[in-house]
Each structure stands twice: as C-alpha cells, then as structure tokens.
C-alpha cells in the first residue's frame, strides 16, 4: 500500500469570506464552518476562536486536536467509519494542512483537563503551541448525558478538520512524501538482509472518556490486528479519549504518529518496517492477557526481529505495556517500550505501576507529576474554572494573580507516549 502525503505549509489563519487558502494563509469563512459542523442536536452555542503561536492565549479544557486533511486520490475519505464509509484508506494521495490544528474544548464531565498555552513556559511542553489553532467550543444542551456530549464534541472536531482539509484539496503541496508498505512476503524479498521491525500501537480503550475508534469501531471490541501505517495517516484511528491530557493520543498525533514516521525514515536503510499492530488497553485482566497474547502471537507470525511498543495513559495500562513487552521478548523479539512516568512531584515515587526485568530498553517522555507555573494570559478560550480539580491540578492551582501552578499532566501532549515531544526524565 502506497500513500503520497502532500504537505501544504500554512503561515497564518484568518477569518474572511469563503474558506480557502490564499498563498500561505488559510482564510476561514465563519458561517461556512459553522454550517459544515453544525446541526448537532446535543450542542448549542458553538463558538470558533483562533489562537496563534506566540500569542498570550490559554486554551482549556482541551478535548481533542485534529489536523485538517483531505483525500485527493485513492479509496475512501478521511476519518473512515466516523465521517465517511468504511472503505480501506491509506492508498493514493492525501493532502495535509501543516501548522494548523482544530482544537475542541469544553467540559464533558466535572473534572476536566487539557491546557494549551500559546506562549510562555507552558508552550514549551505542548506541541500544539506551534500550530495555528482553530478552537471550537460548544455548550451541551441541558439534560444530555456525558456519553452523548463526548461523542457530539468529537464529531464536531472531525467535521471541522475534514471541512478545512477541503481547502487544500487543489493546492499544489510544498512537499510530497511517499510512504509505502508491502505485504510481508514482498517486503522480505525486497530487504532480505535487514532486521524486520513492527510497531505495537497500544490504544486506550476502557469506557467513558477512555475510548479510541478504529474505522469507527470502538477499539475495546477488537482483538489485536495488523494495519498498514498509511491507513492511520488517513485518520483510521480517532481519539475519544478525554483522560490524561499529557499522555493520551489526540487524533492529531494518531495522524502524525512519530514512531511510524521515524520507522519509515529508517525503512530500507537499517530496518525493514513491516507494519503496525494495534492493540487495546482493557479493563479486565483476562482481556489484558488475551490482547497481549495475541499481540505477541502476531509479532511472531509476522516474523519480527524487533518491535517498538507505545503506551497510552498511565496506571492500569502499565500492566498492558509490561505484559506486551514481556511476552514479545519471550518470543525472542527485541523490544523497546515508550512510556512516561508518574514519579511524584519530588520525583521520588515509583515511576510505573508495573515492572519487569525484560523491559530493559525504555524511552520515557518525562515525569508527568513535575509542576510548572503558568503565567497569566491575556486571553482565555474556554474556562479555567476547573483548573484546581482537573488531573494535575490541585487546591490552590489557580492563584489570585491569574497564574496557575499545575502538574505537567494538565498540559495537552506534555509527556505523549508515542514520543512526539522532546521531554524525558533522568535519574538524579
């Protein structure tokens, strides 16, 4: 399967007449956008704001972040199973609007989280301070349930990203990158001398606020399976995950999964990258056992020599991570696991909820409990009323002078466990 990913680099986003790209500027027609995303029976008071890198703006509580993309050639459309039919995607050509993100914000349940600061010290910790953000906030109509609210907000974001993506459908990309993955047999013939590597992609799938969708299917209902990496670039995996802002994978990160990018970078040079194995993080121990057994089995079946395993979330998913690592290693396949830590504010606590000596190659994306003081921002999109009770917040988080002291947990993408960022932790 072969995908040409055309990138259009945008330098500014403005409101204006008729949604289109003018040079390097994205013009958004406010009314058109609302029409494209509107009509949800559960939401009202939908609002669109723009936030640019370097501005004194804080966005919170952030739900999802999504990159505008559009399918130009090949089967299906972006976000299969969610917005479009379940055609297999990942082939042909897709255009990606770079430096722009749709951000959905709003309170789904009482305790909420997810901060994006567009400037100041907090901006260093979130990848989404570098994108021009089209922020969508919406109020739930009275009486709707959190499940419905979450689903409505999720769909709103996807629709907005797909709508904006249309604006680059006919724009000549600044850069085209071709990604190709062959079926295992052909792949083996092509690079017989290189070690065969797979990517085990763990998806948070536990229930309300903890879900991920693959081609529209709630991934907790799946058993581990194999995907072409390019399917994921076309939005085949979508986030419905609202817990743990720092280390959940927003849809943007699924679409731009850095492990996939970096494995492709080495593909044909030092490794033979065969594909992605998606697996879930379930509630019951029996499901954890089954999914990790299957994951290891598929790794073996694909004849892998090595695998990278990435986690989503913390605590209970640590058990899945360690089970996957141990069982894959027991098949004689070398693994590297990618995680983050909750070592307490002083860094002295136990970092993970599970451990195994076989997990001897670990990439950490930082200690999520470390605190940071975020300065006052001139403009607020959303509300900070929940800061003291959000994950990573605490009594007194929101101070009288408008500054906020929080743990990095509260910042969207701060310790992302696909290794999207540069943050890490070291032993002192």
């Amino acid at each position, binding site marked *: 399967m072969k995908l040409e990913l055309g990138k259009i680099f945008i330098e500014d986003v403005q409101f204006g007449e008729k949604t289109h790209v003018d040079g390097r500027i994205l013009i958004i027609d406010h009314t058109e956008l609302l029409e494209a995303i509107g009509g949800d029976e559960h939401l009202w008071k939908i609002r669109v704001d723009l936030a640019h890198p370097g501005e004194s703006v804080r966005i919170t509580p952030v739900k999802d972040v999504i990159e505008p993309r559009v399918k130009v050639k090949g089967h299906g459309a972006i976000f299969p199973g969610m917005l479009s039919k379940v055609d297999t995607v990942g082939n042909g050509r897709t255009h990606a609007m770079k430096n722009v993100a749709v951000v959905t914000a709003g309170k789904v349940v009482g305790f909420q989280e997810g901060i994006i600061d567009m400037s100041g010290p907090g901006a*260093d910790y979130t990848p989404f301070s570098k994108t021009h953000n089209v922020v969508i906030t919406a109020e739930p109509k009275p009486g709707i349930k959190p499940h419905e609210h979450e689903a409505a907000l999720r769909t709103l974001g996807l629709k907005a990203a797909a709508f904006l993506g249309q604006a680059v459908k006919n724009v000549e990309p600044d850069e085209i990158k071709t990604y190709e993955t062959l079926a295992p047999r052909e792949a083996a013939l092509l690079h017989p001398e290189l*070690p065969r*590597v797979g990517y085990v992609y763990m998806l948070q799938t536990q229930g309300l606020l903890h879900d991920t969708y693959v081609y529209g299917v709630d991934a907790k209902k799946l058993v581990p399976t194999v995907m072409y990496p390019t399917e994921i670039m076309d939005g085949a995996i979508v986030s419905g995950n609202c817990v743990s802002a720092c280390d959940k994978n927003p849809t943007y990160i699924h679409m731009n*999964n*850095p*492990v996939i*990018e*970096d*494995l492709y*970078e*080495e593909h044909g040079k*030092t*490794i033979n990258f065969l594909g992605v194995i998606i697996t879930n993080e379930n509630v019951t121990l029996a499901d954890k056992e089954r999914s990790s057994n299957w994951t290891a089995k598929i790794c073996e079946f694909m004849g892998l*020599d*090595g*695998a*990278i395993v*990435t986690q989503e979330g913390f605590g209970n998913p640590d058990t899945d991570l360690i089970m996957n690592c141990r069982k894959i290693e027991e098949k004689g396949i*070398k*693994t*590297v696991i*990618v*995680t983050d*830590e909750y*070592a307490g504010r*002083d*860094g*002295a606590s*136990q*970092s*993970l909820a599970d*451990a*195994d*000596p076989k*997990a*001897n*190659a*670990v*990439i*950490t*994306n*930082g*200690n999520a409990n*470390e605190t940071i003081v975020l300065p006052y921002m001139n403009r607020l999109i959303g509300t900070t009323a929940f800061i003291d009770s959000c994950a990573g917040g605490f009594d007194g988080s929101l101070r009288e002078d408008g500054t906020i002291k929080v743990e*990095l947990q509260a910042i969207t993408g701060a310790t*992302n*466990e*696909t*290794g*999207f*960022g*540069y*943050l*890490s*932790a*070291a*032993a*002192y």
Partner: protein
Amino acid sequence: MAKKKIVHYLNQFFAGIGGEEKADMPPELREGVIGPGMALNAALGDEAEIVATIICGDSYFNENPETSKHKILDMIKPYEPDLFLAGPAFNAGRYGVACATVAWLVQEELKVPALTGMYIENPGADLFRKAVYIVETGNSAASMRKAVPTMVTMTKKLLNGEEIGTPAEEGYIPRGIRRNVFREERGSRRAVNMLISKLKGEEYETEYAMPSFDRVPPADALQDLSHLTIAMVTSGGIVPKANPDRVESSSASKYGKYSIDGIDDLTAEEYETAHGGYDPVYANEDPDRVLPLDVMRDMEREGIIGHIYEWFYSTVGNGTSVGNSRAFGIRIGKELKEAGVDAVLLTST
C-alpha cells in the same frame, strides 16, 4: 571574602585514635582538621575550610543512636557551618551508616547542605541514597585519592548553590530521583535508535531502569527427605531469651547462630523474637509459630525428615538492607554447605 566553614565527621579509626578496641568512644569535638580532612581541606583551597572535626566510635554510634545524634548536632550548631562533610566511609558498614545518618540529620535539622562518600554497597548508601548526596568511592581507603576531587567539586557546588548534574556527571550515587530534561531528539526517534542498537547487539542506555529484581529461581522440589539433613533459618528474629548476640530489632547488621541440639520445642521461657516490625505477642507466646521446631521434630521422629541440623540461624528482616541480607545469605549458605546440610527450611514473618 571569608572562607566558608565546614564541619567534618570521622570515626575513631580514620581519626587515628584506634581500631575496634576504641569503637565505643562517644562523640568528641576537635578544632581544625584531622586525617582524611587534610586532603579535602587542601583541595578546597581558598573557598572553604574545615573548622572542626567530630569523631565518634562506630559501635557507640550504632548502639546509642539517639544520644549520639543529639550530642553531634549540639557540637555542630555553634560553628554555624555552611556545609557538613562526613567520611568518606568506603566499605566500612557501621561507619557508612553513621556518616549518612549524621549528614541527613544535619540537612534536616540544621538546614545545612551535607555530603558524604562511600562504596556503593555500603549499607549506609542503601539507607540514605535518596535523602543525601553520597559520592561513590572505591571499597577501600586506597581510593581516597580518587574520591577527593569528586567530593571537593560537589562540595563547592553545594556551597555556591550551583545546580547538581546527573550522577554520571558528578559522581554521586543515584538517589532515584526522577527529574525532567529536554533531549535533543524526540522520543520516537530515540526509540528507533535504541531498537536499532538493540537489534545490532550494541550498547544502549535505557532511559528508565526497572527497579532491580533479585529473583532466585526456586530449587527443584525434593522427593524424599528421609535421608537428608535439614537446617532451619529465619528472618523472623527468633533468638534465645535476652537476645545474647543483640540482633537488632530492625536494619539488622548481624545474625545469630544457636544450637538446638536436644531441644524439642521452642518455649516462651527460653526463646523470643528480636523482630521490631510485627506484633511480637504470638511469636513470644510460642516461638515455634515462626520457627517450627516442634513439628520438625515430629517429622524427624516419624522418619519423614532424616535429621535436623543442630544449629539454627536467625536474623531480622525488618528494614535490613539488601546488601546485608545478601551477605548473611552467602555466609550462612557457605557454613551450611560445609556442614553437609542438604536442604534449608526458610521462614519469615
């Protein structure tokens, strides 16, 4: 600018007073520099100087911890030091524990930065590595020359309030504190690099070392005990009444070895537990509950067990360092092997 003031701590041996025969000397204050303090003082140059040295016997400190701590703190206070140095203790166990304890105390009570040094396997390191900076030294005083520059560099940094780098940069024993850093490559790229190294069999450094596991695979089950000699070993602290060897109630530095030749039952009159980590009532009522000699004798009489070894070994597992435990195990194992023991019944609490 006036030189900054340092108070130094030594044991009786390094202060040149005497060996084990002087180990029970109480804390004593001397003006100026003594023994290893000389080398440290010289290397500190104009920045700081050791103004006083406190000497305490290792046995005294370990047996009178509360009195020692008070006395030592009272001796340090009037100097209002800018920093406190202890040791280095190398591989001397009791000395290491004393150095680390006093350094921690000074840091906590007097709010003065403190630094000590010792060999990584010193039990003092196990106990206090999280709380105080401990420079890693070799296992004998022969490594003093190497330890001095490391200790002095860290001393200067602590005196000036400079940021302390990683253990590898500074030479201290990792405290197990996790601190965030930004790296040059993103996490995914580092993961790919690490995987490539691992696949090639090359060296790589994990970014998070799993807590260390010291798992011993259990030996194969014995089919027939009727010809075997079985020894009994416990970490439950069962000792003859009045604890003749003074096995500590916690953080044990020793174990006891006691004959059970001709004894059928561990009675409340003759035995008790030294363990300070659990409610001793039931163990003291009937010490067989921890070390089941009574049923073992029954089995011996019934011929299920060939013979019960005539000595039992006992220590206390309560907070006892992994290093000490390992050392006890090795020594006890060696003795039992030499005595021709075939199997061991190991009981804990």
